[in-house]
């Protein structure tokens, strides 16, 4: 049995309490949400926090709600609830696509949206999903809250904009008309991290794409949203040629590395192929053409 190094543990009773603890304990403290990344890393002693602040009692962070302009998701919302949510499925089918292939049911029962984003693993799927959807992250501290875009949220591999005395509390996804989204992932085995994933979202204006975004996972630290992809999609009419062009842009703008999951060349190919597929499906959904 793998056992972690000694640590102290406290259950937060409110968001304010959690942030206060974090502020007091500093960088040696970590929030534990679902714990499905942090606890294995602690057991392998790759992470050795001195304090764990358990935020699983913060019921105020478990929600998925919508208003006229956006969908708001509490940071503690579990994968399982993202998978099951009809609201999300209706507005952003990319969530259900992705959640079906994230880890396994046991992990999905515990893991959370906020935890996934804060872990900031370059292979993590929900970062690509949120990037494609142009989501914004609400970060709270004792002095108030700030809202950052996904592009600004991820600072680097395993690094986010959330400071030592801050907490990610909510993810906001803008609601715009005529949208479609989809997620494509290739993995070595069910439950494995992605070899490469591609998430796409498009917003149609009649027969043309008004706006479109692609987020990639597992092909480098800074590929969650590619500007040139959005430029190529803006105002373009959907076609196989367009998907190919955008797939090629995605492939050209990622930085995969050869590892046990695959060669860099293969991953670059997948970035292209999966972007083509996710875009094709996103457009089909936006235009009611999905088979």
């Amino acid at each position: 049995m793998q056992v972690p190094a000694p640590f102290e543990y406290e259950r937060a009773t409110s968001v304010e309490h959690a942030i206060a603890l974090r502020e007091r304990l500093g960088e040696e403290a970590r929030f534990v949400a679902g714990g499905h990344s942090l606890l294995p890393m602690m057991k392998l002693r790759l992470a050795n926090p001195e304090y764990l602040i358990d935020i699983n009692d913060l019921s105020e962070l478990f929600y998925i709600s919508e208003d006229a302009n956006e969908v708001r998701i509490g940071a503690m919302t579990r994968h399982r609830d993202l998978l099951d949510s009809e609201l999300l499925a209706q507005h952003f089918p990319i969530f259900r696509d992705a959640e079906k292939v994230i880890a396994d049911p046991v992990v999905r029962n515990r893991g959370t949206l906020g935890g996934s984003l804060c872990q900031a693993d370059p292979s993590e799927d929900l970062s690509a999903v949120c990037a494609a959807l142009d989501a914004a992250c609400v970060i709270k501290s004792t002095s108030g809250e700030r809202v950052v875009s996904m592009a600004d949220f991820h600072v680097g591999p395993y690094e986010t904009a959330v400071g030592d005395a801050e907490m990610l509390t909510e993810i906001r996804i803008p609601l715009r008309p005529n949208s479609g989204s989809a997620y494509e992932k290739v993995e070595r085995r069910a439950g494995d991290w992605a070899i490469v994933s591609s998430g796409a979202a498009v917003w149609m204006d009649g027969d043309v794409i008004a706006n479109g975004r692609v987020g990639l996972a597992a092909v480098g630290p800074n590929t969650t949203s590619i500007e040139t992809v959005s430029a190529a999609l803006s105002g373009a009419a959907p076609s196989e040629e367009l998907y190919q062009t955008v797939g090629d842009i995605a492939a050209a703008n990622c930085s995969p590395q050869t590892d046990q999951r695959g060669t860099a060349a293969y991953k670059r190919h997948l970035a292209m192929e999966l972007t083509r597929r996710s875009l094709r499906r996103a457009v089909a959904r936006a235009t009611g053409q999905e088979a």
Partner: protein
Amino acid sequence: MTTTEPAPNPAEEAAEEERPIGFGRLLRKEDPRLIRGMGNFVDDIQLKGMLHLAILRSPMAHARIVSIDVSAAQAHPKVVAVITGADLAEQGLAWMPTLSNDTQAVLATDKVRFQHQEVAFVVAEDRYSARDALELIDVEYELLSPVINVRKALDPDAPIIRDDLEGKTDNHIFDWETGDEAATEAVFLNAEVVVSEEIIYPRVHPAPMETCGCVADVERVSGQLTLWCTSQAPHAHRTVYALVAGLPEHKIRVIAPDIGGGFGNKVPIYPGYVCAIVASLVIGKPVKWMEDRTENLVSTGFARDYVMKAQIAATKEGKILAVRSEVLADHGAFNGVAAPVKYPAGFFGVFTGSYDLQAAHAKMTAVYTNKAPGGVAYACSFRITEAVYMVERIVDCLAHELKMDPAELRLKNLIKPEQFPYTTKTGWVYDSGNYEPAMRMAMDMAGYEELRREQAEKRERGELMGIGVSFFTEAVGAGPRKDMDILGLGMADGCELRIHPTGKAVVRLSVKTQGQGHETTFAQIVAEEIGIPPEDIEVVQGDTDNTPFGLGTYGSRSTPVSGAAAALVTRKVRDKAQIIASGMLEVSVADLEWTKGSFAVKGDPSKSVTIQDIAMRAHGAGDLPEGLEGGLEAQICYNPENLTYPFGAYICVVDIDPGTAVVTVRRFIAVDDCGTQINPMIIEGQVHGGLADGIGMAMMQMIAFDEDGNCLAGSLMDYLIPTALETPDWETGHTVTPSPHHPFGAKGIGESATVGSPPAVVNAIVDALKPYGIRHADMPLTPSRVWETMQGNHTPPI
């Protein structure tokens, strides 16, 4: 004689309520305990005052130990002892023999020879403190260049790994050969078609659900050692401890409680067991050592790691004439292969497969590298996985060159039923076989012709579909004592049967289940022979104090060897029962007739006594025939006459997404013949598990290393086990060709599917890639490796 029968429909099966007294489908007796979480595994054992042991492992693959400072660890408030290799060396315990007559460091004294080798251990009051204290040990290493690439191990300038062995000037372990080199060369010289391919079976790991571990308890006054241990071979382990550590054998009790999977991983004696014994001996308290998952994957018995240059010779019409191979075997830093001593290459000699050849020859060179030791594990039947994979792959390469259908090519060359017993060109005597019906049955179940038609249509449309065929012959049930021993211990198995006065029974085995279902299977064997219901028969196993000597469960040997022992000991008891019955019925022994469960007077079935009546009489106050002792029990030791040779025909169907190179196993048809079947449900379970293993090895598993010798497969996130989502609904069927020399005709089944399935999967994937001109691709065929192969960039995995 062979009978054929597809697997029954589960719905029909459920309707059958009759419980067999003997062979037949029967729910497993052990499952009510195991599926409720009420088993008793090594890590469940808690003893008063028990301490916990953790092992410090080397971060480097090859380095000299300059110094070790344990003072900080010793100062930890909960640490009881810290022991290094130097401490063990003082007791003469720093090195121990392997099962292949090599030596292996218990704790490194001079050098570390593979990453994660054992360097020191801590004993503490709890496992957390033991683990914490490891980080307080300061080891200074002087880095040495490692030997990682097996192909460079014998280079003249390669660093010498085993400088502990006197006079060792290279990394060579052994050369081995089999068959007739000259005769084989002659056939190849004159052959119309010769096909060559380098075929690699990468290093894989059995990764049992339960890792290895033990609780050692040395009783201070008597010196009695009790060792609860994850052992597939408790008796062999006890004798080895006696021989190695000089402990008197009668003072050693090895108990293997419930075991969570073995697959060969739990055959060797690991340094951790020895450390725990030493710790208990020194400290005088019970000591528990349980590996964590990483330790299991990176340090314990791996499997395979063969680079096989294979050649096949044939006529243009597809008559296979000869097979030969040259193998480079990576044994890691210590030769820890657990195979019969006279078989350093295990049973690789059966690489001639299921075909009638004119000649065959193989030679092998085994080398040391800076990797974990092992070599025979993961349900390989002593290297038959490698042998079968090689021959089934090269036969497919031949089919490719001849542009012949691979099933047709096999059918043309299978050994004919009238040729059995068949002696292969490498000297193995296949006991019985009837291959063609099994092959035809698999093809019928698959709808082979229709699949080929579908494939042709799909190829027209640019879709990638593959059909892979393999036909294997296994050699299991080691083994005849004249040929086979491990460290001088003959591979015969004892068995004891005692019938209680009320007609219930207890049978004591030398073998030990790791999940295969011995508690059920062996009760059924006894039931079949004596007519007592299986639920009335207790099966005792895994405790050296309560069971007769034998070599343990691996190499699919339990049914062929101990199964035979169980049948024969039951017959011995039945013979005595017959004498008692003759007294009870007042007739001569010859006038009695046995029908399952009772003896009756010939010609007068109304005069009969049941085995339960006889048992009571055997222990009761009434008269027994003159000269007969009371009681109803017997013991035997069974020495098998030959191995048994199960066989099977497998067909795998895959689809490949041309855009992503993702392979989906759509169907898998497995027809097995393991002779007489004891419990078809358990057999199917064994087959299902092995087929999943095959998909794992073929498509996702490899213990890989970087160039510095860092193991890249240290967790189940890196070393992948297939799930239900990667495996299709298995389609199983069977034929029955009894073994002529086994008492009731059974052959082993435990490893058949692991042996037979990898080539079927790989052959299917390669077949799917035919439009790309691909003839061969090496495992593991991950999406990336398949895609690179499609681009013409296939590279060997090692």
